């Protein structure tokens, strides 16, 4: 297993850069980080719309959520890459297409988690805040969302971790991230199928575990704050 790392370490980490586009684990992390960064505000809006009382936003958000949770990510990427340019006449590079597909996909799932957090709170919280004279925006920002999101940290972390691994599917449109690198190595090496996959697993595990630990510490901090309030 260690000879795979030493021989192919660079391929795993950056793909064919600088002879080609950035690839390997670097591409995975960039894609995942950007994807989460861009989909989070969208998810917030979708969650608020779904849990809110206004009909039109709720309806639109529901259609969004139902559509993008129901289609496999590989198919979203596939159709976005092949059909959208035909329909719109604009050609988008593979990396950007993959990123947009991930943003759209994750926003649907994260939006639902936000909604669960919002609906899990006692309505008394909202009532008290509004009674105290806070506007809708202020109520959400200062009172409701902090509590809702704090409750949902385990689920949010679940989804973040999922995103990192979901990026592996982008190889179908030629984005050369780390799973692609593993496939390369698998075709060159003959007897190392399991070892290559374990090295691949190692990369993902390290990244995901870091996020999980950070989230665990965040949870502990929030729990201590809550006990202070309770």
């Amino acid at each position, binding site marked *: 297993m260690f000879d795979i790392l030493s*021989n*192919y370490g*660079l*391929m795993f980490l950056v*793909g*064919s*850069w600088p*002879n*080609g586009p950035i690839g390997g684990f670097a591409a995975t992390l960039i894609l995942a980080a950007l994807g989460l960064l861009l989909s989070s505000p969208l998810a917030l809006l979708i969650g608020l719309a779904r849990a809110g009382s206004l009909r039109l936003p709720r309806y639109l958000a529901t259609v969004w959520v139902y559509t993008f949770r129901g289609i496999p990510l*590989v198919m979203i990427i*596939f*159709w976005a*890459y*092949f*059909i959208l*340019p*035909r*329909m719109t006449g604009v050609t988008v590079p593979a990396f950007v297409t993959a990123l947009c597909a991930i943003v759209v996909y994750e926003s649907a799932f994260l939006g639902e988690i936000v909604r669960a957090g919002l609906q899990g709170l006692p309505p008394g919280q909202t009532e008290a805040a509004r009674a105290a004279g806070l506007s809708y925006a202020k109520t959400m920002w200062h009172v409701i969302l902090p509590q809702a999101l704090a409750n949902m940290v385990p689920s949010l972390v679940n989804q973040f971790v999922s995103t990192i691994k979901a990026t592996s599917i982008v*190889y*179908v*449109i*030629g984005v050369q991230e780390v799973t*692609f690198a593993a*496939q*390369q*190595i*698998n*075709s*060159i*090496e*003959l*007897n*190392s*199928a*399991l070892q*290559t996959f374990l090295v691949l697993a190692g990369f993902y595990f390290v990244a995901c575990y870091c996020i999980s630990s950070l989230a665990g510490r965040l949870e502990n901090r929030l729990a201590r704050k809550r006990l202070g309030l309770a």
Partner: protein
Amino acid sequence: MKARNWMSCTAALLLGTVGLAGTAHADRLATIKEKNRLVCGTQNASVPYAYQDATTRTFVGYDVEICKALAKGLGVELEHKPLSTEARIPELKMGRVDVVAGAMAYLPERAQQVDYSLQYLQGNIKVLVKDDSGIQSLADLNGKRVCASKGSSSAAIAERVLTGSRVMTFQDVASCNLGLQSGKVEGFTAGELVLKRFENESAQSGSPTRLLPEATYVERIGVVTDKGNPELIEAINGVLRKMDESGELDAIYKQWLGEDSVYKLKRTFKVEPVTTS
């Protein structure tokens, strides 16, 4: 019935938008000459056809060389595009690549969707079994499990030829070999030269294996273009014939499959139509 109609409508809508955009087009050859660029697709992780070299981290292989030769023969620049199995045909049909040299064997069903050039490679599809399994011929594979790599010609062919066996596909040839070694499957079918590597490897580590002498199929590999581009096919055929006469094809073969490679195969095929039986 209703669900089917609904599915039909949606799918037709999806494909209709695609079709509307793609109906009128000149022969691709004209576009290639105009752009002064041939976009040539190959596989992305298949030794020795098209794969990423570990040290230089560039794409190399038999098919990559064919792409280079095609571009040179047509007098244009080459843009090489490594493609995944899912994308190879869509990219061709959407016009994002001009040709695909992806070790794709000729099959009548496939020829309904794409056009094949003259063959530039021919190979035997064989089955690898464990030495101690007692399997001597293809008939002995009845009732047994045979593995092929997903998306390969061997997979498609195995389903048709080895009707008595249970054909399973794994993600890639390395997984199939793992399956054979660990007893998950009794046979592993792929191109002869891929299997030769594994046969040699197994003599040194793992359980020894051997190739069944009978081939399941003779695969004729040609360059593939979208339908409706006869001039392009003619041009490619012209280049291939010239490569054959000048010895360039022999040189590429020697480097990747012949004496200078690990396979040490001798070239026995002619550059002839893929439908020759």
